[in-house]
């Protein structure tokens, strides 16, 4: 078990500064703020540590922490191939959060996952806060070969629908691969 963080930094970013606990931090200040946590708490992954359009900050943070920890772009990439491409070229982030409804078709979703893999970026398949009993997400995670899935706590049926679908796929779909 590891600790993973979702900082959602776009929410407290204003005029080039991160307003946090009464302080105003630059991107470098955010890196200083987050860096000790990685070792102290064994943080494995940080999602949206910086704001969605702070590309320079993301570059800086990735060059400082990218070797030790997964830096996941959610608001930064919004499952959009053009934005992911920009991140790959600039060295901003090293993983992408994948939400199908950020982009709107299955084909475009797979393009993002495939491009991430090709560039050595991680891909985390994610649910939204408003979900249904549809478990498509679990199939997407398996079909795409993504290593991680972000659904939420193991309570409430709209989430369990996905976890149970993963269990079902593993147990029953391909009995010949049981070894």
């Amino acid at each position, binding site marked *: 078990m590891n600790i*993973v963080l*979702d900082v*959602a930094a*776009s929410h407290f970013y204003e005029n080039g500064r991160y307003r946090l606990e009464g302080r105003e931090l630059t991107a470098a200040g955010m890196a200083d*703020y987050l860096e*000790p*946590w990685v070792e102290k*708490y064994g943080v494995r992954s940080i999602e949206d540590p910086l704001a*969605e*359009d702070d590309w320079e900050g993301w570059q800086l943070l990735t060059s400082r922490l990218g070797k030790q920890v997964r830096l996941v772009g*959610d*608001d*930064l990439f*919004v499952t*959009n191939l053009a*934005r992911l491409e920009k991140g790959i070229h600039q060295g901003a982030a090293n993983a992408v959060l994948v939400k*199908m*409804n*950020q*982009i*709107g*078709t*299955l*084909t*475009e979703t797979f393009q993002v996952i495939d491009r991430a893999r090709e560039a050595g970026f991680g891909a*985390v*398949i994610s*649910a*939204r*806060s*408003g*979900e*249904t*009993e*549809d478990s*498509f997400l679990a*199939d*997407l*995670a*398996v*079909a*795409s*070969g993504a*290593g*991680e*899935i*972000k*659904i*939420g*706590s*193991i309570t*409430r049926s709209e989430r369990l629908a996905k*976890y149970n679908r*993963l269990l079902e*796929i*593993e147990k029953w*779909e*391909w009995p*010949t*691969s049981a070894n």
Partner: protein
Amino acid sequence: MMRIEHVRALEILDSRGTPTVQAQVWLADGSCASAQVPSGASTGRHEAVELRDGDLSRHAGKGVLRAVDNIETELGPAVVGMNAADQAAIDARLIETDGTPNKQRLGANAVLAVSCAVARVVANAMEVTKVAGGPDCQATKLPFVFCTRPFSRSAQPILIPA
């Protein structure tokens, strides 16, 4: 060829009681499948556009009857007759039918519902119950389980010693 015969849609409710879109796709052989789309609360500025009715007399303006109607009158008819197994062609047609870079005209919620329902009806028709993958694919994922509520939705902040 798995010919798409018919596409329908309806407004359903998500885990917050907010309307969302369900699409159902029928193939010529009578098989059918549906898909329901999720909805985000904290959304990135650059996301594709989720179409909401804005009609304050229903669901505080969050109805999705326009998105549903867009499936039944535009997106559905645009893919009827196409081969459902060609997901790339289906999605390209959906994108072209919407005609905007961020799917704002017909709604990303409408487009995605059709895209996913097509994938699922094909998976069903191929007698596999998963969307893709194969005998060697690994179903075990590292799950991310939330331990705290988002700060914006909780009463007490959690202080983390530096």
